[in-house]
């Protein structure tokens, strides 16, 4: 573990028993966990290379309890790390040794479904997939579909602004959330947004979504639900080169087609997936595209023909169109199992998440290959091709001394490369602890200071999820200081009337 977390505050650790007693007074029964062996399941999230048992875990059941916990921690300067299902791939829910881990798993109820206004009000511990399950009998679904959707919670999705394979057409979490109930670190309960399409004043909801648990704790979420498209059809297309696959993607979009999903896999990923689930993927191609089209049958047929023509023009060597739902799901099975499939060919893998302008894909893959040789570690690539979101999976063995560190250094180089070609550090997994120290690669000191000033407006004591997202913790008083220079205009010849 190469990243440093804020050092534990000895004064807080010395008060551990008192803090546990206070939390027990708020959440009676089994909702406070503090024995070392019982804390172990909470010591990491989806970023398993990082582990740290929390000081104590509290599992509230009511909004009042959440508010009381946060008020107590606020008054006593105790840090709090919120956690949903613990599936973050960036360490967003990594505990701190001197912090309370606030688990929201008991908030697991669907509160209201309104098909007329096409929305659902749910508690934050409800899983992403459970929302779709709750509304599918009426022909609806919840669009964002991160691959952890069977386990990840909607509260965690809000914190991370989660995406999925369908977000080019249907948006990320932020585009599908209408409102939240939020408890601030001071224990105030706020409603941001609601059942209308917009809210008055500043779009605070817009910054709460994707704030990685640093601005508040979400206790209720109102999401948009969508009528399920009449049909969906998938095309499975193999290409002899990554360049030709990339050109097919570009021409599809240039033709005005925004597919419901457009995924690319490189050769190592194709082979790993095929060996694992036998989806019938061609093994003699360098790149595989899955293009999913949805809508009325007539639309799917029309667009499938267009995409097939584009693919052929770009030298596709295999091309299959799903004839029924079973075949469509089979096409997806390999892609959806890509991560565990890679897990079979390597003792460990490290999943990256940069976004690049799509046109730079061939260059980025080429440079990645060179880095792979340099670090002596293999890499397999799955790629949300429509929106340029790259998921390189770095293969390593944690039992070999130094390999984890090498994998991390390789990953950091990939993300620097993404920024260098005009992209970003993270497309959907979040910064968390994982990419925290790379933030200056993408943002200037002033950019980061302005973001932290926003944090100060929500949590001036910096008690909520500290050590995540920002490489340097500035105190709010320091960030707020202003130096106004009295004197002449720097540009005396500036036009003014």
């Amino acid at each position, binding site marked *: 573990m190469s990243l440093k977390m804020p050092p534990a505050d000895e004064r807080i650790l010395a008060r551990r028993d008192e803090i546990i007693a206070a939390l027990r007074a708020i959440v009676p029964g089994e909702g406070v966990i503090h024995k070392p062996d019982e804390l172990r399941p909470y010591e990491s999230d989806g970023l398993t290379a990082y582990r740290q048992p929390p000081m104590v875990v509290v599992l509230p059941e009511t909004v009042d309890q959440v508010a009381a916990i946060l008020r107590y921690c606020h008054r006593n300067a105790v840090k709090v790390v919120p956690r949903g299902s613990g599936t973050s791939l960036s360490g967003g829910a990594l505990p701190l040794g001197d912090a309370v881990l606030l688990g929201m798993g008991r908030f697991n109820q669907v509160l209201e479904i309104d098909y*007329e*206004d*096409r929305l659902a009000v749910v508690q934050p511990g409800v899983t992403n997939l459970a929302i779709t399950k709750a509304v599918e009998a009426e022909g609806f679904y919840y669009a964002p579909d991160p691959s952890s959707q069977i386990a990840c919670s909607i509260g965690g999705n809000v914190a991370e602004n989660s995406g999925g394979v369908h*977000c*080019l057409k249907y*948006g*990320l979490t*932020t585009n599908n959330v209408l409102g939240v109930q939020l408890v601030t670190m001071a224990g105030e309960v*706020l*409603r941001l947004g*609601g*059942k*209308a*399409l*917009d*809210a*008055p*004043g*500043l*779009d*605070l909801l*817009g*910054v709460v979504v994707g*704030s990685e648990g640093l601005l508040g704790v979400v206790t209720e979420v109102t999401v948009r639900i969508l*009528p399920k498209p009449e049909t969906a059809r998938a095309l499975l297309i193999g290409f002899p080169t990554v360049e030709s696959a990339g050109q097919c993607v570009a021409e599809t*979009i240039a033709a*005005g*087609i*925004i597919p419901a999903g457009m995924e690319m896999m490189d050769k190592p990923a194709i082979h790993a997936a095929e060996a694992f689930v036998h989806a019938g993927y061609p093994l003699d191609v360098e790149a595989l595209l899955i293009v999913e089209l949805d809508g*009325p049958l007539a*639309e799917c*047929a*029309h667009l499938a023909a267009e995409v097939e023509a584009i693919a052929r023009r770009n030298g596709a060597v295999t091309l299959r169109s799903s004839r029924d739902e079973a075949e469509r799901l089979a096409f997806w099975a390999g892609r959806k199992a890509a991560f565990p499939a890679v897990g079979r060919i390597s003792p460990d893998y490290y999943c990256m998440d940069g*976004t690049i302008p*799509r*046109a730079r894909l061939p260059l980025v893959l080429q440079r990645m290959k060179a880095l792979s040789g340099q670090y002596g570690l293999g890499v397999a690539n799955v790629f949300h091709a429509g929106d*340029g979101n790259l998921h390189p999976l770095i293969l390593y063995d944690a039992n070999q001394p130094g390999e984890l560190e090498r994998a991390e250094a390789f990953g950091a180089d990939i993300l620097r490369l993404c920024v260098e070609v005009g*992209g*970003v550090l*993270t*497309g*959907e997994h979040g*910064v968390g602890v994982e990419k925290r120290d790379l933030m200056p690669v*993408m943002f*200037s000191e002033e*950019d980061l200071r*302005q*973001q932290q*000033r*926003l944090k100060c*407006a929500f949590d001036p004591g910096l008690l909520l999820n500290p050590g995540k*997202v920002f490489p340097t913790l500035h105190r709010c008083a320091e960030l707020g200081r202003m130096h*106004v*220079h009295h*004197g002449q205009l720097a*540009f005396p010849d*500036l*036009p*003014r*009337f």
Partner: protein
Amino acid sequence: MTVFTPDNTVQVQSVIASALAAGNKLELVGGGTRAEFGAPARQAGRLNLTRLSGILEYDPAELVLTARAGTPLAEIEAAVAARGQALAFEPWGGQGSTIGGVLAAGVAGSRRVSAGAARDHLLGFEAVSGRGEVFRAGAKVVKNVTGYDLPKLLCGSWGRLAALTEVTLKVLPRPQERLTLIWRGLADEAGFALMRAALRAPADIAAAAHLPGEATLLRLEGFGPSVAARRGYLAAALAAYGAPEALAEREAAPLWAGLQGGASFSGDAPLWGLSLPPRAALAAIAPLLELGGRYAADWGGGLIWLALDGHEEVIRRQAGQAGGHAMLVRAPAALRARIPALHPQPQPVEALSRRVRLAFDPLGVFETNRFLDLAHAD
């Protein structure tokens, strides 16, 4: 009143720094097409951003366009139209309206119900804060979660946080076909029920509006075979409301244009925009219609343009109780000086909003009292 017309970001910074040093206020202005929104500014210099103009990067295949913030909306729309693309949120503005102004005001047209708002299409920006500091947020790619989503916060912030100098937008393909179906003479309840039924069907409705006593409109967009299929589906599914007519684009366009910003409401009555849960909308406005209000509904019933003299408190109460809010969009200056343009929020939300504003503009250099809620630092 001094008007500053800087040419570049450094000059914008210089104007703001000077205002800070002198303790002056600055009103941020693009094309000035929304100047009559909110209370008239008090003793403020005017920072006119229209000389920060021009498209900087546009790569249609990447679905991304970067422009300086003072670029006219019309120029951007023409550039993307030439490449078969569009700003999907259907922004609107008067002659000279700038992209920065569109974003700062957070305006979206009838497609809001299907394509999202301005905030859903701003990917990144460069701006100068009320601290006089240049900063960037977001990025120039369509998918990004690195750092707080400040582009969302800047949309609809009405120039109270920072002066936008450069913006990166998501652009999308322009639909190949556009078809408006019209049902004439439906009663209000039937018109609203029709919109709800259409929007919950798998028919991918682009826009839905109800003009009372006149027409109920559904707009379908997309590829020809798809539009035809959905038209057939809707005719069957909505048979109970009678057979619709397909409107020629030259007849449909003025109807949709009339909904933009409540443009079809002329006259002196103050104009309000009520954002409401669609199902609650009709009941919420019923007492307002009895008081003489006239309305048109867009966004499937989620947006009500309401023209009504007086009764400001009743309007706000009705909107609030229905779970929505009421924005005073257009009114004589005397009324705007008295009634806040934005619906007041519960105290803890107002207080948090104020702290957020202070995080960007601690000395209140952009606070011209336009919103009647002075947020100056003490």
